[in-house]
């Protein structure tokens, strides 16, 4: 009865169980690549946990840790050398990895599929997990990320904190506030974990309120304000030492979000995310772990033009997605083999409407996403073979069956106007395969090589968009249901060297993409949006390629001093030799970090070369080179085991007026910005 009463709460801990994610943490931090998956990179938003499995860790203050919790998730992601951010306002930037935007990536939260409800991608999935609810982000490139779904560019899975069962510390948590000058922004956050012997519950929340920011030179950038809150509750219950039940709920609401680069803002964006997980650690040595999850989420999004001047005609553009799904996966171990099996499925519905209100006339209504149902089943198998302490190999396969159909007859009729019959469902099989080999080449020196084949289904927009306006190139987009599945042959190569004082890591990739999906101008069609340049219809380019790489260097001449440098470059071309649109230019981030037991000071220089390789058909502009200087510092005051942390800094110290190549609308980024965050952890 007691168990039942607590049954809605949950948790964890089989100390003996070694989870995959933790392995990869070890790999990245300690260079112990023989331990595991070399194709997983972890961006740590938490300090490394000393224990493995789901044990609780003391929250040691990492250099950037406290500051991270005040940042936005996308900013943390961007610390990965191969991730860039596409900016349309000052909120929820869209991640771009290996030169590919979210349409070619697989973005998940705790393995849950979530689809943005905005036809203009104003609501990337990364905005729903706040840093103080994020345990780790696992970034996998290309087809090696196919555990979470089929994608070309790779996958980004954000793992939420979840409640921590730690009877030794029944109550723990943090409260904090932060301010920043450029946009008169305020952040407030809290987290609270309550634990008993067999269950724990955690709640956390963030509130952010930002005004328009000032760009370098002091100019206020209109329509960059936003207000949001995010709350999450997680509960764990451990009926036995080998069983964990976990429930998660995340609610995220944004209001009055300005999108300077778009003709409209966001009135509200709301998401509700539910997940229920059961995890079992069997007694058998060959059966490491079994996990089952069911989840559901809804996203509602509404655009707003009422605050804009010179609106020719008011319009409403609401959008909705509803998704539910589940997966079951097991991890087996036979001698040298570590096998992961996963069966997953989801159903999602996307609908977006557009209604325009001319004066004294009937409203003009259309379905920009015609109520599209997608049903997907996937099977994933991965085998990691550790031959010896020197060599290991892993290969994975994923097979997806995807059924897509338009369920609103209105949408079927609309598409008929473009000579498209979308009354029948679209079926696709998606195949992903990956093989990776790694070898220790010498003391502290290792290398890996990955080859893969990836396929991705076209997005709802690419298949069914109905006059979706793209503010970047100024074209209305029309989908094409029969657009071919995009395929890629991929290779990733990496080397890593690590000694006591010096760390280096170099990676390179080449993705040869067949049937690259890109809107092509159809000059026979009239644009719908007033002032638009024309209409583009989804089509397949015969082939295109993306290549690039990054080099990370870190040197510590003194124990307290670290110099690091991270540079990355991506190059993309169509088969005709034209540059692919929205490819980031060469970028370099250097920093000097002086750390002390109770704090650190960091001087950082972020610079990007100009990007002359532009695709004029996509409306791209040449983006000039830039460099900005940031200075950051942190210090904490201990109060027993509790501590008060102050961190602050000045970003864009020289108040440069600059923009990144991926930013929409040629809008300058934030100018000089002073920030100060205060947090108390207990």
């Amino acid at each position, binding site marked *: 009865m007691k168990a039942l009463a607590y049954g809605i709460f949950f948790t964890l801990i089989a100390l003996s169980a070694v989870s995959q994610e933790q392995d990869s943490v070890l790999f990245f931090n300690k260079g112990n690549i023989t331990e595991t998956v070399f194709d997983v990179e972890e961006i740590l938003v938490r300090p490394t946990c000393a224990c493995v499995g789901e044990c609780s860790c003391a929250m040691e203050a990492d250099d950037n840790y406290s500051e991270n919790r005040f940042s936005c998730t996308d900013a943390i992601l961007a610390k990965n050398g191969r991730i860039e951010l596409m900016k349309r306002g000052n909120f929820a930037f869209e991640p771009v990895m290996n030169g590919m935007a979210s349409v070619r990536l697989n973005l998940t939260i705790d393995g849950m599929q979530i689809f943005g409800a905005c036809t203009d991608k104003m609501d990337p999935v990364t905005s729903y997990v706040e840093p103080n609810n994020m345990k780790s982000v696992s970034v996998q490139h290309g087809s090696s990320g196919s555990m979470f779904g089929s994608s070309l560019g790779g996958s980004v899975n954000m793992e939420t904190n979840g409640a921590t069962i730690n009877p030794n510390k029944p109550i723990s948590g943090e409260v904090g506030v932060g301010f920043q000058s450029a946009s008169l922004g305020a952040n407030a956050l809290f987290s609270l974990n309550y634990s008993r012997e067999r269950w724990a519950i955690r709640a956390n929340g963030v509130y952010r309120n930002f005004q328009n920011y000032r760009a370098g030179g002091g100019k206020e950038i209109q329509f960059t304000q936003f207000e949001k809150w995010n709350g999450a509750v997680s509960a764990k219950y451990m009926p036995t030492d080998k069983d964990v039940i976990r429930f998660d709920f995340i609610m995220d609401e944004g209001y009055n979000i300005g999108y300077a680069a778009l003709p409209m803002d966001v009135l509200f964006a709301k998401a509700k995310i539910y997940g229920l997980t059961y995890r079992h650690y069997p007694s058998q040595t060959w059966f490491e772990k079994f996990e089952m999850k069911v989840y559901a989420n809804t996203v509602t999004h509404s655009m707003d033009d009422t605050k804009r001047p010179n609106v020719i005609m008011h319009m409403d553009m609401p959008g909705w997605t509803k998704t539910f799904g589940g997966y079951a996966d097991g991890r087996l171990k036979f001698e040298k083999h570590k096998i992961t099996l996963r069966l997953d499925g989801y159903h999602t519905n996307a609908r977006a409407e557009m209604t325009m209100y*001319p004066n004294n006339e*009937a409203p*003009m*209504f259309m379905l920009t996403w015609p109520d599209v149902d997608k049903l997907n089943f996937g099977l994933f198998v991965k085998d990691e073979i550790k031959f010896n302490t020197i060599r290991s190999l892993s290969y994975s396969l994923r097979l997806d069956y995807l059924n897509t159909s338009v369920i609103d007859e209105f949408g079927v*009729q*609309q598409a*008929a*106007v*473009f000579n498209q019959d979308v009354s029948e469902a679209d079926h696709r099989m998606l195949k992903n395969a990956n093989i990776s080999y790694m070898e220790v080449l010498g003391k502290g020196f290792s290398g890996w090589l990955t080859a893969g084949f990836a396929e991705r289904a076209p997005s709802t927009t690419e298949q069914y968009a109905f006059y979706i306006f793209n503010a970047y190139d100024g074209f209305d987009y029309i989908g094409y249901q029969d657009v071919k599945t995009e395929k890629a042959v991929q290779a990733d190569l990496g080397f890593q060297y690590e000694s006591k004082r010096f760390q280096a890591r170099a990676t390179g990739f080449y993705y040869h993409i067949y049937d690259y999906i890109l809107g092509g101008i159809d000059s026979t*069609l009239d644009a719908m949006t007033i002032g638009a340049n024309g209409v583009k219809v989804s089509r397949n380019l015969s082939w295109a390629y993306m290549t690039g790489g990054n080099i990370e260097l870190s040197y510590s001449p003194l124990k307290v001093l670290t110099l690091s440098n991270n540079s990355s470059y991506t190059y993309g071309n169509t088969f005709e030799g034209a540059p692919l649109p929205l490819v980031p230019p060469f970028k370099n981030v250097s920093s000097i970090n002086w750390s002390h037991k109770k704090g650190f000071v960091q001087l950082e220089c972020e610079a990007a070369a100009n990007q002359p390789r532009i695709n004029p058909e996509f409306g791209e502009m040449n983006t000039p080179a830039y460099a900005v200087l940031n200075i950051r510092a942190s210090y904490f005051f201990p109060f027993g085991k509790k501590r008060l942390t102050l961190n602050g800094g000045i970003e864009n110290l020289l108040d440069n007026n600059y923009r990144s190549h991926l930013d929409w609308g040629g809008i300058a980024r934030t100018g000089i910005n002073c920030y100060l965050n205060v947090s108390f952890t207990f």
Partner: protein
Amino acid sequence: MKVSMKLLVVGVALMSAILGGCEKKEHNHHQNSHTDNLVLLGTSYTDEGSMKISLYSTDSLYSRYTNLFIEVRDSATDAVIEDAEITIMPMMEMPTMMHSAPFEDPNSTSAVNGLFPCAVVFQMPGDMGWSLTVNAHEHVNGGMGEVTFPLMVKNPAPTRTRVVTPINDPASRLVISYVQPLNPKVGINDFEITLHSRETMLSWPGIENYTVEIEPEMPSMGHGSPNNVNPTYTADGHYKGQVNFTMTGLWRINLNIMDGSTVVDSTAYFEVTLQ
């Protein structure tokens, strides 16, 4: 035995009465059903030939292409006559002149569901002055006669018929009338218009083999729609094609009417509102 025999007789009689009653009822119902959704514009006895003629339409009359339905009954028995030769003649009498209108006689001597369908293009509205003369020669009893119905024709909103002066023949008149879609929807719609010319005041024949181009647009947005099919001549001045609407709201279908390569008129348009 006798009793049961009597009962049987009574029973059979009752049964047949009930069944007969039912049948009759159904028959009556069937007789009325074909005019259930129609508006009765008038009923009158013919001057000769012992017929009672009723004139129906789908709605009250507007200046537009109008489907009319004529019912002919035997004035003595009230039985519906389904075999007759019907001709019609619309007429507009004004103080200084009179003119007819484009029209289509029933195309068969057999009624469809008891009615003879025909059509008139009322090219102008009029509270008075309009009339329709129906001439009938029924083939059941051989009666012949005619009747004239005075009609009231209102101005529709939006405009559904336009009388324009052809660029290439200023002395004549071209009557362009909208036939369908009557319930336009987002998607592909059958589009149909009629073209008639004024030969004389009393003769407004359908025009054959003009070239008609259509271009739908949303006036408040300035855009059109793709893949429309220009109407082509079918019969009796009718031209059929397809018009596509990509969204609800007010659409204007612009017309360009040509005789071969000579432009006859490029000013006419029809507006439709999709709710």
